[in-house]
C-alpha cells in the first residue's frame, strides 16, 4: 500500500455527535437514490389510505390530509448508503394523528407502508407512533420535490431512510411482521442507524 488512508482535511477530527457510526455528513446536498422509475403523481387524484387492523379503514384525499393540523420535524436523516443530512426539516402530519382517526385494534403490532409505485417497507407499530413518524409534504419550507418522494412521503427519521417510503400511498396495520421491498432483498428488517443495522443479520 502506498500511503495509509487518512481522514480528509475537510472532515473534522471531532466527529459530530449527531452522526451515527459509519455515516458522513452530506452537507447541503440531498442525494437521490431510488430503485424505481420516478412516478407521475397528481395531487388531484392522490390518496392516502390506512387499513388492516383498524376499526374503520379510511382514505384521505390531498385536500383532506393537508387540512389536518400540521406537524413539523426538525432534525437529521440517515441513508443506509452512508450519507446523513443534519439539521434538516420536514412538515406534514404526524402518523399518530392519522392513526387516531382510524382506531387501531389492540392486536396490531406492525405496519406495512406502501407507495403509489408498489414499493413496500415494514415497521413495528412502535416505530411510527408517539411522535416518531410523519406523512411529510414539505422539505425546508418548500413542497417536497417528486424525486424526494413528493407529493408526500413517509418520514421515520430515527431509522435508515429506506423506511421513509417515497410517494407513500398508505399504511396497513398487521398483527405480524411482513418484510417489505428491501427487507426481502438483503437489507435489515428494522434499520436502526445507531446500531448500524444495514444488512440482514447486522
Amino acid at each position: 500500500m502506498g500511503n495509509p488512508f487518512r481522514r480528509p482535511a475537510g472532515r473534522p477530527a471531532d466527529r459530530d455527535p449527531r452522526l451515527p457510526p459509519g455515516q458522513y455528513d452530506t452537507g447541503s446536498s440531498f442525494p437521490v437514490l431510488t430503485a424505481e422509475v420516478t412516478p407521475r403523481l397528481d395531487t388531484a387524484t392522490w390518496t392516502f389510505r390506512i387499513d388492516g387492523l383498524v376499526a374503520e379503514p379510511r382514505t384521505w384525499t390531498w385536500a383532506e390530509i393537508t387540512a389536518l393540523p400540521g406537524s413539523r420535524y426538525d432534525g437529521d436523516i440517515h441513508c443506509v448508503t452512508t450519507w446523513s443530512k443534519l439539521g434538516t426539516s420536514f412538515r406534514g402530519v404526524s402518523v399518530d394523528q392519522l392513526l387516531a382517526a382510524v382506531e387501531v385494534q389492540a392486536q396490531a403490532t406492525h405496519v406495512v407502508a406502501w407507495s403509489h409505485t408498489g414499493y413496500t417497507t415494514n415497521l413495528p407499530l412502535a416505530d411510527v407512533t408517539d411522535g416518531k413518524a410523519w406523512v411529510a409534504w414539505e422539505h425546508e419550507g418548500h413542497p417536497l420535490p417528486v424525486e424526494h418522494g413528493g407529493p408526500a412521503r413517509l418520514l421515520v427519521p430515527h431509522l435508515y431512510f429506506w423506511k421513509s417510503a417515497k410517494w407513500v400511498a398508505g399504511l396497513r396495520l398487521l398483527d405480524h411482521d411482513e418484510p417489505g421491498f428491501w427487507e426481502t432483498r438483503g437489507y435489515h428488517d428494522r434499520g436502526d442507524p445507531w446500531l448500524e443495522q444495514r444488512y440482514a443479520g447486522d
Partner: protein
Amino acid sequence: MTDTPTDLPDLPPLPSIGPVGRRPPAGGPKQPWQQATVVSVVPQTERMTAFGLFLPKGRVHVPGQHIVVRLTAPDGYSAQRSYSIASAPTDGRHVELLVERLDDGEVSGYLHAEVRVGDRLAVRGPFGGWFVWNGRSPALLVGGGSGVAPLVSMLRYHRAAALTVPLHLLVSVRSPADLPYAAEYGAQTTIVYTRIAPDGADRPAGRLDAATLRPLLIPDATVYVCGSGGFAEATSQLLVDLGVPAAGIRVERYGPTS
C-alpha cells in the same frame, strides 16, 4: 411477532413491483467483513480503474450485485462505499470492481492514488437483491459512464454461460476516451457518445434519445438502468414514454445529484 398471522381476506392485495417473487425469507446470515487481497489494477479510462480482488471467504454473486469497501485511518476514522461488481460470477472468491475517481471522493480517490497489487482491503458482500439478473429472462441494459459496471457483469455472464435469452447492452459515454471495457463490446451492444463520436460512428454525438432506444427494446424484457442520477432519471422517463411499463424498469443511481 405473534405466532399466528391473521388473514385479512377482505383487503385488496398490496401492489408489488416487478415479476420476481417478492417473499423470499427475510433476513439471512450476517455477512462479516473480510480482508480481500488486490490481485489486479487495470486502468480503464482516465477516471476509471478496475480492481481485481481475491476474497478468501467469498460467495458467488449474482450479476448486478455490489461489494462494500471500507477504509480505516490510523486514528480510527473510517469511510465505506459500495462498488458494483463488473466480473461474471466465478468461484465467488474473485471479483472485479470498477471504481470511478470522483472529485473529492475520499474512498475512490484513495483507491486510485494508493492501492496496488498485493494490498489488502476490508470488504463485505456481495449485496443487492433488486438490481440483479439471473440470466433467465430477456434483459435490456442501459448504462451511463461507470454505471455500466453491473451491466458488464451481466453481459459477461451471458457470454460465459453461452445463454440464448435475448440481451442487449447500451452504454452512454461522453467520448471514446471515457469508455471502460472498450475491447468487450461489439455484438449485443450499442455505444452512444454524447459529446465526441469516433470517426466512422454510425450515430453523431448526442444524448441518448428515443430514436436510438426504440429499436433496441426487447418484448417482455426487464430494463436495467444504471448511472448518475441525471442519466438514470432521463433514461427511465424516456423508457416510460416509449411504452415500457414502469414495473419492468429497475434503476440504480449513484452519486449526489443536488
